[in-house]
């Protein structure tokens, strides 16, 4: 029997902490008073939900790229499984971020119009980023030899991870956008109430924690499958 790759004791402890943590964040997100701003009104609370989705995706991209790097270094298929699962759950959080952003903008700046999808650069760049990750999953399914697949996919995944900060943060900031931080505006620090930051930063940690729970569960399941069937793609 191989050594367990996931430390179960640590997993259970962290999982329970995260569940309690996110519960507190949810309570604070709805119960604390926030300054009322025209157009935004209560939807300013979406800062605690929509924005952490992107932080979570970014964290997932880092985790995935780290394990892809280790695939190239060691050739270990377990690292390949980790890279794949982190990329999948990360892309899923990206889709959630897109959907929540669509709903948020529709009932704030797009009220009275039929616009659900506008020319917002961040929306476009993020969709492009999700397509780049879509290509990663397609590329994997096109290759049969596990060793070859792990190496080629790792190289592509490192490319995909490198484009992420540019498409999510650098390019959208140069263009006109609904998002704060566009065209040299302050992104966050000067325009956000201190009380909201008190909930926002813990919310980021909480959602990254939820990613971590799901990702660890998937790694455990996929590893079991791999040990039983020698199939690393699941």
């Amino acid at each position, binding site marked *: 029997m191989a050594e367990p790759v996931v430390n179960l004791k640590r997993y259970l402890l962290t999982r329970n902490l995260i569940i309690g943590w996110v519960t507190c964040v949810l309570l604070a997100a709805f119960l604390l008073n926030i300054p009322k701003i025209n157009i935004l*009104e209560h939807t300013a609370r979406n800062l605690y939900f929509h924005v952490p989705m992107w932080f979570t995706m970014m964290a997932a991209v880092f985790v995935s790229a780290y394990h892809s790097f280790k695939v190239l270094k060691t050739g270990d298929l377990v690292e390949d499984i980790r890279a794949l699962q982190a990329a999948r759950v990360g892309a899923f*959080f990206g889709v959630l971020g897109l959907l*929540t952003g669509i709903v948020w903008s529709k*009932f704030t700046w797009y009220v009275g119009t039929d616009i659900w999808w506008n020319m917002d650069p961040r929306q476009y760049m993020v969709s492009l980023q999700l397509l780049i990750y879509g290509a990663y999953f397609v590329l994997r399914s096109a290759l049969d030899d596990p060793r070859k697949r792990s190496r080629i996919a790792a190289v592509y995944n490192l490319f995909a991870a490198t484009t992420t900060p540019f498409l999510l943060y650098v390019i959208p900031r140069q263009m006109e956008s609904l998002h704060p931080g566009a065209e040299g505006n302050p992104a966050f620090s000067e325009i956000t109430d201190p009380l909201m930051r008190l909930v926002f930063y813990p919310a980021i940690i909480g959602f990254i924690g939820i990613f971590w729970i*799901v990702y660890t569960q998937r790694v455990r399941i996929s590893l079991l499958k791999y040990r039983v069937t020698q199939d690393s793609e699941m």
Partner: protein
Amino acid sequence: MNSQIIQDSLATDQAASTVSTAFDSLWAGGDIPTQSLSRMEQVMLADDKIFVVLAVVLIIWAGIVVLLLRNDKRLRDVERSVEERIPDPEDEL
């Protein structure tokens, strides 16, 4: 003299209210909708748009449920592979 105090307090009240209008939903600088609101917008914009936050939280909750169900499916898949490999004691009799 009393009326002077009342007037003063009224003036401060008014000053306070002009300060707060910038944060009010009827802020004069705000965009006025070009169309009449659709039914869905009427529902979503009620109570200072709190239902928009509810919709966003429900989307995320639905996403977490999807992740849970998919993990369940994966687990079932592995369970089947393991069960296939466990020899049935009755076969050996």
